[in-house]
């Protein structure tokens, strides 16, 4: 489904990713772990086409298509979704208008007609329930004045609305208390199907208690240095990253 080959990427001329190789098959959940500065967020930003990052080498294909050749919006239309580490506040743009524009552009890409106002509101209501997102929040401007937990909940709500085939959760657990973490993770699990895949980026194990990964990777200095089953996350939880660093060096 997603094939990353020898991916190098830089920002402001500084190379962050130094040859990433990764393949995710349909239905799989991969966890990507690593310390600050390892390049985790860079990888997620490069995959969704953030204009600040430059790919200097390598390739990424998604369902056989050249992902790097697509605009960010077309990557979204093809089923890629990023739950942002820091969701942006957009004052003056209501959640309703924002989501309606997004949903209808997805539909247009698939050759479907736009939803009517009542169809759209019905969809909003259904999907809101999945992450227990308050109606009050849905009527506000995008993320404006939302708490950290509400922002993350809102990300999963948007994921529910857009039904992506590949979701990247970029430190979705950061800034969440235990209850919010559970709601967000359970919301994510409800949205999974045998065809959908995910890349879960985190420092900690606790998110992986709720979202069970099939494969765990450790990113260090722009490369994947270790790949194993879910037990690797456990080991990192108890032993930290230093032993891996020592292995590499």
């Amino acid at each position: 489904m997603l094939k990353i080959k020898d991916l190098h990427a830089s920002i402001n001329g500084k190379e962050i990713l130094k040859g990433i190789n990764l393949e995710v098959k349909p239905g799989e959940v991969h966890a990507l772990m690593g310390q600050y500065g390892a390049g985790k967020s860079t990888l997620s930003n490069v995959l969704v086409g953030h204009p600040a990052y430059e790919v200097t080498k390598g390739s990424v294909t998604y369902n056989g298509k050249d992902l790097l050749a697509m605009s960010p919006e077309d990557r979204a239309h093809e089923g890629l979704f990023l739950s942002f580490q820091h969701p942006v506040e957009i004052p003056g743009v209501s959640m309703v208008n924002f989501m309606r524009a997004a949903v209808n552009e997805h539909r247009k890409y698939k050759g479907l007609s736009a939803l009517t106002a009542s169809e759209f509101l019905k969809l909003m209501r259904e999907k809101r329930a999945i992450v227990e997102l308050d109606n009050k929040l849905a009527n506000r401007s995008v993320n404006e004045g939302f708490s950290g937990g509400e922002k993350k909940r809102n990300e999963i709500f948007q994921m529910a609305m857009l039904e992506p085939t590949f979701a990247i959760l970029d430190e979705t657990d950061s800034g969440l208390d235990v209850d919010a973490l559970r709601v967000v993770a359970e919301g994510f699990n409800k949205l999974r199907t045998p065809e959908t895949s995910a890349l879960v980026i985190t420092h900690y194990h606790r998110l992986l208690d709720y979202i069970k990964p099939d494969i765990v990777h450790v990113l260090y200095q722009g490369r994947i240095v270790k790949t194993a089953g879910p037990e690797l996350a456990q080991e990192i939880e108890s032993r930290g990253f230093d032993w891996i660093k020592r292995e590499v060096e």
Partner: protein
Amino acid sequence: MNNNHNKSGLSTPLHYREGQGGGAATQYIDLFAQCEAMICKHSAEALNSLRAKAFENFKRLGFPTRKVEAYKYTDVSKLFAPDYGLNLNRLDIPVNPYDAFKCDVPNMSTALYFVVNDRFYTATSDELQTTNGNRPNGSLVARSSSSIPDNILLGSLKEMAELHPDLVAKYYGKLADTGKDAVVALNTMLVQDGLLLYVPKGVVVEKPIQLVNILRADVNFMVNRRVLIVVEEGAQVRLLMCDHAMDKVDFLATQVIEAHVGAGATLDLYELEETTTSTHRFSHLYVQQEADSNVLVGGITLHNGLTRNTTHVTLAGSGASINLCGMAIADKKQHVDNNTFIDHRVSDCTSRELYKYVLDDSATGAFAGKVLVREGAQHTSSEQTNRNLCVTREARMYTQPQLEIYADDVKCSHGATVGQLDENALFYMRQRGISEREARLLLMFAFVGDVVDSIRLEALRDRLHLLVEKRFRGEMGKCQGCAMCK
């Protein structure tokens, strides 16, 4: 030049000398000297009585150069230099505004009137439908209209000045000082007609009044229009003025509005400009507020050529409050210049000012806002905000907020920003599948949202949300939904 007009007395400024200091002014000085009798003959005493002084002031001032602080960003003498026709002999302009202009702000039940160039057309469009669109009875006074209370006066300033000379003389020219601004002096010198709105003490006009100003001419044309608004103690009225230009010729329109707002009175005044890229508008609005009066001014430039709006608010009575909001959307080579001055003369007054510009292509915008808090104007609360969005590198915005305070117990703030669209927000939206263009539109639309929301007329607010969206989408070259612009 249209012969018909010419023969029957369409006047043209004479002896224009290009490139000389005061050259632009000279043609108007000569014009007035030659045509004074004709101008006066077709106007009323109250208007005529101020011409001589205005003429003296105009000769003394000449048009301001860009060295004059207040006109730093708009080159007045250049704009007044070309040849424009004037209809000083008051010929009937061959137009039926009711046929030409069918648009209204929908769902908004307004009492609708028209001013073609500077001539007021009486009665509402509804009433006119039964008279085949002819100007009924030759009357230019809308006193008996069913849409507005009997005791308010609404109609041609000239006619009103003849019918109620004392009333007009009491207020006319009392706020607009011809000694300080050449364009005001020019307007006062040449103006022959316009509008009077008089709401007597305690009268509440429920229905908003909508006035559609239409510029109509076959040749490059100058219009000088005057609006006098008197809202007496405790009275309430809402007035919406929409500016349109019907022809592709160059228009130069000067307008002076004087609004006297009595104690405890409320005035909502909205100006919506939807003209053409060849229309030059110079508008001066003077508002004087007595104690506990409440005024909202909304100035919206949706489509224009060059616009200069000068707004001068005097808070003369304790407890008065003014809410001044403005918005400009400009692209191509459009130019919008708002110059505002709020004078806190007495204590316990409130002013809130919010202006937002969105400039695309090579558009230029200017905002100069001065708030003066005089000695003794304690407990003044004043807030001024100017925020601007330059969508391209070529767009230019000049902003100059000024605050002068001579009292020590006041709460004042001001701020101005010029920025670009938030790149992080753009990317966030694109990640959700929204195209870059659509994302930009959503952000621009959001940017001006709070100005639109300041409007206290719900139907107008809804209409503006739509118009603004269409304007950003480029679906509106000019006015949307009215017959004459199609």
